[in-house]
């Protein structure tokens, strides 16, 4: 079973849930060989019916203590642009499609998505371009994302506070 995992993190992103379950997106996903969709809808008010995407096995939930398992069992992650979700997907080494919410007051999220796309770690789009991106994106161009180095931070801080 080839599954796509959609996650909105702690927020709500109804536009994304609406768009990813639209006829156009469902068609594109089936064309890519996907058979299942796993939706994490967060605080959103759009909660699609499990029968609403003919051709795809649909699962929906709001929150879980950990979405690591959902990430691991997926073949593609579609995420909101939150740093936590993006890093988790990249850390799990999953192809990542980020959908930027252009309705947010301070849309700094675009900065990270843009930079990580420039570095070929993910592909980003907005809700309006999502179906087209699902049809046309080339996931083979993506490069693995090297983990950050918190030990450098620890080393610096040890010295700064006088532990070493």
């Amino acid at each position, binding site marked *: 079973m080839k599954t796509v995992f959609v996650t909105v993190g*702690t927020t709500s992103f109804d536009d994304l849930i609406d768009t990813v379950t639209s006829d156009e997106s469902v068609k594109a996903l089936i064309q890519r060989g996907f058979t299942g969709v796993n939706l994490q809808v967060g605080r959103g008010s759009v909660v699609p019916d499990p029968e609403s995407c003919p051709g795809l096995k649909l699962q929906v939930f709001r929150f879980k203590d950990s979405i690591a398992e959902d990430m691991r069992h997926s073949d593609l992650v579609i995420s909101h642009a939150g740093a936590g979700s993006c890093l988790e997907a990249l850390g799990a080494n999953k192809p990542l499609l980020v959908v930027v919410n252009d309705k947010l007051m301070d849309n700094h999220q675009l*900065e990270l998505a843009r*930079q990580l796309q420039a570095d070929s770690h993910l592909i980003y789009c907005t809700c309006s371009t999502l179906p087209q991106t699902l049809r046309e994106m080339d996931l083979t161009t993506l490069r693995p994302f090297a983990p*950050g180095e918190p030990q450098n931070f620890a080393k610096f801080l040890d010295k700064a*506070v*006088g532990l*070493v």
Partner: protein
Amino acid sequence: MALFVVLSGVILTALLLVTGFILRLFVVLRNGPEYKPGQKGSVSVLVVAGSGGHTTEIIRLLGSLSHSYNPRHYVIADTDKMSEEKIRTFEAEREKSDSTSQFTLQRIPRSREVRQSWSSSVLSSLNALFSSVPLVFRLRPDVVLCNGPGTCVPLCAAGLLLGILGLKRVLIVYVESICRVETLSLSGKMLYYISDYFFVQWAQLKDKYPNAIYMGRLV
């Protein structure tokens, strides 16, 4: 005449207080590098967890810190659902490798919700400040560690206030979120001036803010 004497006395006292406050502020802001709380063996940390992505990032940072950073006091916004679980999972792991490991969870009102207007943001920020000061004064941490959620501004301000009043020097360590590539967050813009150690994770920001510390991606 008597009124004039009293009045000028009051004004003079106020001026002296303000001057003293500002002088202390400069002293506190400059002596950070000399203050080494770790020399007593352990460092207590106030960790501002904030929300979703911020919490994930700060837990990655904490994961790299040694057992000497103990105890850890986590501050979470009271509307947050996911952070507490992430913290408890992390701390449960931590306890397995170190039985002396200690942590507490503290809740304060959130400064600003995503999509909240700026005017009501001001009111809720004030509300957050009123609950931050007693919290920080009670815990008296050696270090405040934060990475950008709105709640960290009042908490850092409270930490700074402890230092200005001479009650306790609190080191402010700020790590700008990895999602900030070109511009600092609002919290970052404010805390750049009062942080003792201010980290950024992209070279573009180091160019714009030369006092920041850049060591590549940390999370």
